[in-house]
């Protein structure tokens, strides 16, 4: 059953509603392969209309977590619910999945392939074909719809696969490293579509190890490391919790202020500017005063901690 009413043209009125049931909820999910623990007691919940980032370094258990969400593997313990109901294969028609390992039938024609994928998700053949055609137009693949997949470049194949994941108008879109291997223009096109989808009330779950990408796109995140949850929730809240403790300073002159250990915990000189990490409890204004006493300041900027820093910070804590 395809989600009814989800047409190609995405309505732009924001639907999200804080009281709505979570699109997906994981509760104490564990998965191990033999002795290796891939996912350890993972809990998270994703609300409709959000772009949610599942972040972590390589081998953190992201892909295992995603595979459990679409039922390719079954958790050893814990529960997964989709659209407010316990996980079931019947939900799969409302989910679109782009795996990290891309793969298409090489000998199939692009349009036929897309139609096949959409039909598996419950669309009728004519409906699948018209939608495939329109999405191909949007991703500038119109000239290639009659070609075999193997004749396409890798980037184009990836666009085809992306279309395959969203063609049936899923309510939940799960993408494993969606941007890897795309050129800048395609990255923008793909990002725009994801934003549109989220605005129209769909839920987008991205898994990536590129924290900077997630930082720009996601409203909520889940950081995992070695299969364990490090931080989860609204991105702004997570950032606020970790406080604002970095300053970027561009100066000319005396650099003695950097050695004031009561104020500066550490600093990183990038040549054009230094990035200063404040000591706990230090006031940024104190640093500015001290610095301006001996040097000409051309730039002084309080910086939000990057996700990367939050992650490194969290992971390096002994109890994390």
């Amino acid at each position, binding site marked *: 059953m395809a989600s009814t009413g989800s047409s190609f043209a995405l309505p732009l009125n924001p639907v999200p509603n804080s009281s709505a049931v979570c699109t997906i909820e994981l509760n104490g999910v564990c998965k191990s392969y*033999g002795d290796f623990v891939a996912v350890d007691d993972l809990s998270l919940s994703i609300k409709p209309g959000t772009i949610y980032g599942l972040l972590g370094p390589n081998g953190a258990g992201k892909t295992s977590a995603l*595979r459990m969400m*679409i*039922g*390719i*593997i*079954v958790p050893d313990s814990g529960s997964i619910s989709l659209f407010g109901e316990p996980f079931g*294969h019947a939900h*799969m*028609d409302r*989910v*679109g*999945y*782009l*795996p990290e*390992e*891309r*793969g*298409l*039938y*090489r*000998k*199939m024609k692009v349009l036929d392939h897309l139609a*096949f*994928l959409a*039909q*598996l*998700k*419950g669309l009728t053949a004519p409906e699948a074909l018209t939608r495939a055609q329109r999405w191909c137009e949007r991703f500038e693949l119109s000239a290639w719809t009659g070609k075999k997949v193997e004749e396409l470049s890798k980037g184009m194949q990836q666009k085809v*696969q992306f279309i*395959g*994941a969203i063609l049936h108008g899923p309510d939940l879109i799960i993408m494993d490293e969606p941007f890897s291997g795309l050129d800048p223009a395609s990255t923008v096109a793909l990002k725009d579509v994801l934003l549109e989808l989220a605005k129209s009330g769909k839920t987008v779950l991205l898994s990536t190890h590129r924290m900077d990408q997630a930082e720009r796109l996601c409203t909520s995140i889940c950081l995992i490391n070695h299969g364990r949850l490090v931080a989860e929730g609204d991105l702004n809240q997570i950032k606020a919790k970790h406080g604002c403790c970095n300053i970027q300073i561009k100066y000319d002159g005396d650099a003695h202020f950097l050695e004031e250990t009561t104020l500066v915990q550490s600093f990183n000189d990038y040549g054009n500017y230094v990035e200063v990490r404040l000591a706990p409890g230090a006031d940024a204004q104190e640093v500015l005063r001290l610095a301006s006493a001996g040097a000409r300041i051309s730039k002084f900027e309080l910086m939000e901690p990057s996700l990367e820093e939050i992650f490194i910070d969290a992971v390096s804590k002994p109890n994390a």
Partner: protein
Amino acid sequence: MRNMWLITKREYLERVRTRSFLVLTLLLPAIMTVAMLLPAKFATIGERAQHVVVVTSSPQFGETIRQRLLFTSTVTDDEDEAGPEASATRPKPDKQYIIDVDSNPTDAERAILREKVMSRAIDSYIWLTDDAIATGKVTWAGRDVAGFGARSRLSEKLNRILLYTRLSKNGFPADQADLMLKPIKIEAVGIEGGREAKDKTEAKFLQVLVMVMLLYMTVLLYGISVMRSVLQEKSSRILEVLLSSATSTELMAGKLLGVGAVGLTQILVWTVMAGAVALPSLAMQAALSEFQIPPVVLAAFAVFFLMGYLLYSTIYAAIGAISTTEQEGQQLQLFVVIPLVLSVFMLLPVVKTPDASAVVWISMIPFFAPLLMYARIVVQTPPVWQIALSLFLLIATIAGILILCARIYRIGILVYGKRPTLPEILKWIKYAKA
């Protein structure tokens, strides 16, 4: 179910639309035709008429012998089937011989004849002088007289001719002598269902043989293609996308049916082609009517062929699921070939004693049933419960392997690299229990 059909359709169309399918479908019958016609052609090339010289004491007797040799039939000859009237009304000269008469029974002539044989002017001569007949020692001398069939045929003919001449010399009327000497053919008759029936051993053997050939060919051709397609799907990594839409059992079943249907299509095309070529020929029709296949056997053929095909394809699919490369898969093919070869080995005892208890139980084993149970049905229809039980076991085995293999398949995609060990496979099956 819908997903399974979508996958079946895709698999089917992808294969049928390829050029190689078209080429194989059209080319194989051509190759087969050539392969079948050529040996026959060669056989007839080698089989030219034998040039025989009959040496007698008198030209009249020589001529009589010549006529008799050309027009006397033997038991093994087909003309006898048409009845004495037929051969009387339209006598056909024996095409195997060109016979000359020589009424100069001297040693010098014999030496000349020997020379002629050596120089290949003639093939052989028969020393049939009155003396020779009186002593009962007739010589047939030639370059190539060792052929058993040819010798027994010629000696049978000569014996009859000489008996005839003896009888007529002793005043027996010619027609009575002929009648007395008419060979008697012994017809083997089997008793089936309380009635005498013409023995159809040959026809039955052929029915079983066709099954063996067809099963072998399709299993090896299309089973491998199932295996290859499973492997391809694993290496193309599309599996993960499909698994987010369909269950692995749906995928597996769809693939089997799709590839299976391709094989059946091809066989159907070939059957139609063979029928179109063979049916108009009268000879073939006569052969068919002799082989009259009962409808039960025809139905059993269809059912057991399909089951066997499905079973072995499923095993191939399982092999594909646990292998990572085609070479590995080919090594594991043993699991398909061994049961097939074993059932061919057991075919003879089964046909000989179709109701021995060991045979009954062996023919129930799903891996042997397609060939052996079918062979039993052909030879002597077993009780219905036995057929039903063997079919049930077959279907259960196919379903069981399919489900196991779908599990292996699902977990197998997560593991690339070396082939899993048996304990690992068992673990996968456990992991994939849902």
